[in-house]
């Protein structure tokens, strides 16, 4: 099982040569197959040609920046996990990255172990999700129909495609229907992050799910906020 994602193909998008060489070495040592794109334009080209399992994406890139790359990638492939790597520390940039379709982010300078664990975690979750969704591929609530396998959803007449992180969060909430799930629990189990820091991440993803599936996202009926406790998925 652990070896399943060993030969995963990773697209490394980083314009700083020194950092890219070091990352490429370490990822290759871990058993991944790495392709290095030096700028945003190259990243989009490589992505279209290659069949990748994960993207490590810097934000400040020549020609096409990381946000734009994420957007372009998401249009073609909602499933591929994207890990954003950024030297920017303003939380606005992190939020923007997540909104543009990144699943996780790491700020520079980072620890090698943390990066490798996150990459491994993302690939592991991807394969876990694949197995979990095969068991119960389609789920319906209200006028929404979710295909967890294909990440295709239908909201009334509207077709929506979910990102893997959105789908994983949704699956986690659906499996705990009627239960209150705290942000801490979500961060630990869906993101595998240290819950002391990034609780805002959960809120952004919940807002995304509400936008897709709620009849009125400002008055949620399915994805309810429980004050001081977290969130709850409910089906009336």
């Amino acid at each position, binding site marked *: 099982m652990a070896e399943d994602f060993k030969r995963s193909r990773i697209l490394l998008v980083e314009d700083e040569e020194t950092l890219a060489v070091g990352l490429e070495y370490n990822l290759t040592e871990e058993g991944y197959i790495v392709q290095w794109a030096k700028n945003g334009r190259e990243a989009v080209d490589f992505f279209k040609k290659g069949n990748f399992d994960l993207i490590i994406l810097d934000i*400040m890139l*020549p020609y096409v920046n990381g946000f734009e790359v994420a957007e372009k990638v998401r249009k073609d492939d909602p499933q591929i996990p994207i890990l954003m790597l950024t*030297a920017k520390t303003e939380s606005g940039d992190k939020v923007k990255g997540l909104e543009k379709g990144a699943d996780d982010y790491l700020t520079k300078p980072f620890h*090698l172990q943390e990066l490798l664990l996150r990459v491994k975690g993302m690939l592991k979750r991807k394969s876990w999700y694949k197995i979990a969704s095969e068991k119960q591929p389609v789920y319906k609530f209200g006028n929404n129909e979710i295909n967890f396998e294909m990440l295709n959803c239908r909201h009334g007449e509207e077709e929506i495609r979910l990102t893997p992180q959105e789908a994983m969060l949704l699956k986690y909430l659906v499996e705990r229907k009627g239960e209150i799930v705290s942000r801490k629990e979500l961060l630990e189990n869906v993101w595998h992050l240290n819950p002391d820091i990034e609780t805002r991440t959960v809120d952004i993803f919940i807002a995304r799910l509400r936008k897709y599936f709620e009849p009125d996202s400002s008055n949620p009926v399915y994805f309810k906020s429980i004050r001081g406790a977290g969130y709850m998925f409910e089906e009336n």
Partner: protein
Amino acid sequence: MRGKHSLFYHILIFIIAQLVWLSLLGLWIYWYVSNYIVFEKVGEEVSPQLVYDVQNALPFILGLILLIGLSFTTSLIFRHLNVQLRITELYDNFISNVTHELKSPLSSIQLYLETLKQREVPQEKRKEFIDMMMKDADRLQSLINSILEISAQEKKKLLQDYGVYKADIIVKDLIDESCEKFRVAKENYQVTSDASCEIVAGKDALKVVFDNLVDNAVKYSTLKAEIVVSLICNSKKVTIVFSDLGIGVAVKEQKKIFNKFYRIYNKEIPNVKGTGLGLYRVKEIIKSHDGKITVLSEGEGKGTTFKIELPAYTAMSNRQLKKFLKTEKLNQV
């Protein structure tokens, strides 16, 4: 984007303030004129012998002058505020750029150190990693130096190792070094000189000048950078013409590119990294050599030419020689 919004917001506030101000002025004039007759009557009753003359209009005129003065001052304050806003915006950008420029090499060094600590790295890879780390350390050092030296230069406290050099040799050497540093292949640059003449220059300072010009030529070229440097000597000055075939500088930007923190944005090459200090520093260095730098570009996409004029050693005044030689002596001690 945020800056534009805040500027618009301030202009709006200013216009509203002026409207309120003028309406108050109008009201005051209206009140004064309509009450003038009442004042007159009251005055007549209280003191019938009081003579009305021009002096009575004095408070009114003084009031008007005061109001005009106040409006003028408000506009001045507003203008000043606008300038301050623009500087703050540039400064914010600078801080964010510098943070980025500091963090990138730092994360790379940290990555290599952790790699060397955690893995059994083969000997030749180890050497490669150490070279990479040294490159990053150099980058950090030159960034920190540029910030510190600018501050010293502004306070005129920077001591330079001035010396007398043959212009063609020093320029050729420095261009070779810079091109090697920024990976411009030998066939992509050339240095020509029509005659040999001497200049008084700080070698390290001139190196900063050429490093910046070459770095810019590389960063602002869509294809490979191509650089042509030519040297023209006459009895009074040495002119160094540095041309590249990069994206050029729009005419309206040409005056601004030497400003502190100023950076140009070009849709052909977005997201070029930098601090906005490079050309400012170049200009300051050339100024400290009693020289002049100008930029010429026919516009976007047509390449850029920098013209540096330095006084020839033989044409230097006693005052200039004393200024530079004094430092030279100081350095030799």
